[in-house]
Structure formats: C-alpha cells, structure tokens
C-alpha cells in the first residue's frame, strides 16, 4: 500500500521562506492571505534553517486539549485536521501543543494548523530545494493480529 509522508530536511533549507508564502496564499481567508502554518526558524547554527511545521503527532496534545473535538485525524491524509466551524477559539490547543504548531491567526481571529493542504502540501510543491517534500512511501502491510 502506498501512502505519502511529509518530510522536512533542514539541511536543504535555505531560509528563502517561499513555503511561508505558499502556505499563506493557499490558506487565504476571504481573498486575503492567511497565517502561515509553517515557519522557517533559525536552527542555531550557521546557515541552518529549520522549517517548523506540525508533526501530525500520533498522540496529539492539540486534539486531547480540544474540548469540542474540533481536531481529528484525517484518515486520508493522516493530518490532524482542525475543523474551523467547530473550533471555539479557546486557545487550548495553541497552549497545549509542545511544538507550538497550533497557531492563533489574530488577524482573522482563527485558530489554524497544518492540514497538509488536504493531501497536496503547497509548501512542498513550491520549495525550491526539496527541503520540504511530500513523498510516496511504501508501507508494508503488517500481519494483523
């Protein structure tokens, strides 16, 4: 069975921030650019940039913290999707995510997080250096117990 995995390779990142732009425009709100879900941050070493983005954790703190069940795993993309219509903007997920990847878009008063663009992440699409990639990977079927 084939699935895709979002892979970040900071070694290839040049900090050009194209990913941010791509994300921002892909997630526009009422025709205006939205808050980017991805942040290339200083990796602490010379010329090292780390694009920080949601890790789509197995046991996600954001989903656990959400008291209205607005964050659920998308079975198709594997992403933890945040249902904007269900979200009540209590900021529990923003506070709870240990990686800071649930974000408050104060401009539009929305809580946002990476949803892998529904299976075609724009950031990876536009990354000029392949630091971000969305690759098909083969999952060996485990024998079910």
């Amino acid at each position: 069975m084939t699935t895709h995995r979002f892979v970040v390779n900071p070694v290839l990142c040049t900090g050009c921030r194209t990913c941010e732009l791509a994300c921002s425009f892909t997630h526009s709100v009422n025709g205006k650019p939205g808050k980017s879900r991805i942040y290339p941050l200083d990796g602490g070493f010379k010329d090292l940039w780390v694009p920080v983005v949601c890790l789509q954790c197995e046991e996600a703190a954001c989903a656990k913290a959400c008291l209205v069940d607005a964050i659920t795993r998308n079975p198709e993309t594997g992403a933890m999707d945040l249902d904007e219509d269900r979200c009540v903007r209590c900021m529990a997920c923003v506070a709870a995510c240990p990686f800071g990847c649930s974000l408050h878009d104060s401009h539009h008063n929305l809580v946002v997080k990476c949803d892998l663009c529904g299976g075609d992440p724009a950031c990876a699409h536009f990354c000029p250096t392949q630091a971000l990639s969305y690759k098909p990977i083969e999952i060996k079927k485990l024998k079910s117990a």
Partner: protein
Amino acid sequence: MVTLTINGKLVQAEEGEMLLAVIERQNIDIPSTCNHKAVEPYGACRLCTVEITHPKWPGWKKHVTSCLYPVEEGLVVSTHAPEVIELRKTLLDLMLARSPKAKLVQDMAAEYGVTRTSYEEVPDGNDCILCGLCVRVCDQMGFHAISAVGRGHGKEIAPPLDEPPPDCVGCLACAQICPTNFIKYTDAGNKRTIWGKEFELIACERTGQPTITKEFAEYLSKHRDIPEEYFKRNDLTHRRELAATMGKISQWQREEEE
C-alpha cells in the same frame, strides 16, 4: 448516503446529517444564529426554517427548522418558499425590536428587506439574541459556569447569583462563540476579566507573553492528561525550541555528510 431535492436540485447527503448542513454545503444562503458545529442543534432562532414535502405525502408540506431535521431519502426541500421568507422576515423584524444595534441582526434583516423594526422596540433591549450558544458551549466543554436565568421575555444569560462564576476558567469560548459580540472581556497584560471574574494568564517563561489562564491549564492537565510543563511556554517559544532541537540533529547530519 441519501438523495434529496433542494430547490429543485438533486443532492446527496450522509445519513443522519441535518438538513441545514446540507443546504449550506450547496452554498445556499439561509440565515441562522443559534447553530454551531461545536454544540448540539438547538432550534431557538427558527430562521433556518424551510419548507419540506415528500412524494410519499402527496399534497402535504410542513415547515421544519433545518438545523435539527435529519435528512431523509426523497425529501423535497424548498429553502425560499414564500411562506418561509415571510416567516424569516417576521422573525428578523422581532429580533430587531430586541436587538436593534446588533450588527448581525441588522445585516440579516436588511437582506430580507427589513431595515427598521415594525414593532415596539423592547425597552431594555440589548445585543444578546438569546441564541444560547455561550451556555451550550460552556456546558459542552464541561464547565457549566453560566446559564440561562429567568424565563420568557425576561430571560438572560448570567453567572450564578450574578457573582463571578466559580466554575469559569476564563477560556473565552462563550465570548468567542457569541454571534453578536455581546459577551465582553478584557485582557490587560496577564490579567483577564470575564463575567466579573479575574484571572491570571500564564506568562511564557521565555518571552513573558501571556497564554491561557492558570485555571484553564490546570483543568486541561487534570482532565485531559496534558503535562503541566507544556503550558509554561507559549507557541513561539515552543517552535523555537523545536527548531533548536531539529537544528542540532541537522547539524550532526550535516557534519556527518561533510
């Protein structure tokens, strides 16, 4: 899957779905104020009333609130039947008499051609349209800090005994969900005030930026099993830390590759 007809168009919907969700998916604009995905449908504003009929009920039609009417195979829905439009007009006219200054009500009413109420303005009217979203979301989240008080025309939303509500954790969900922004709060530095209750916001260890209230964090740790230390830093600090960790790993990788 069930198939139904909405305004003459065949539409597919999931079994058990409410009519309103299906209608909205069709980009058909009908007003509604008390519906929100986070809470159970309530049916209070009645604005989303539609006319329905069914081939099995020849000559029969009825009016139902679409927010809590589950889809049915073969249902024929009309979202803008003349009687329904008339009802919405009256309802918005009535709502305008109570909340003449609420922008949401003004806008919806204007769409139905009502710019001023034709009824007597309610003397102590305000922007609260009593949709009950705040109470329901508070209940849904498990706090039950506020509730409806009184009944009938004099009903209002308030904390118990009009005192700072003991069960409130200051999450602001009520204020955020309020469709007319009637519920007020203030955030000043690391102090938050809502419903007359003061809260201290946790300050990020690194940046000093306020995050959520201490009470809310405690609740989430206790009931949702989220480690307390997660709440000590804000999202920016968390991201920086992640970048730093990943940076270290990448640096090793880089060094190895060299």
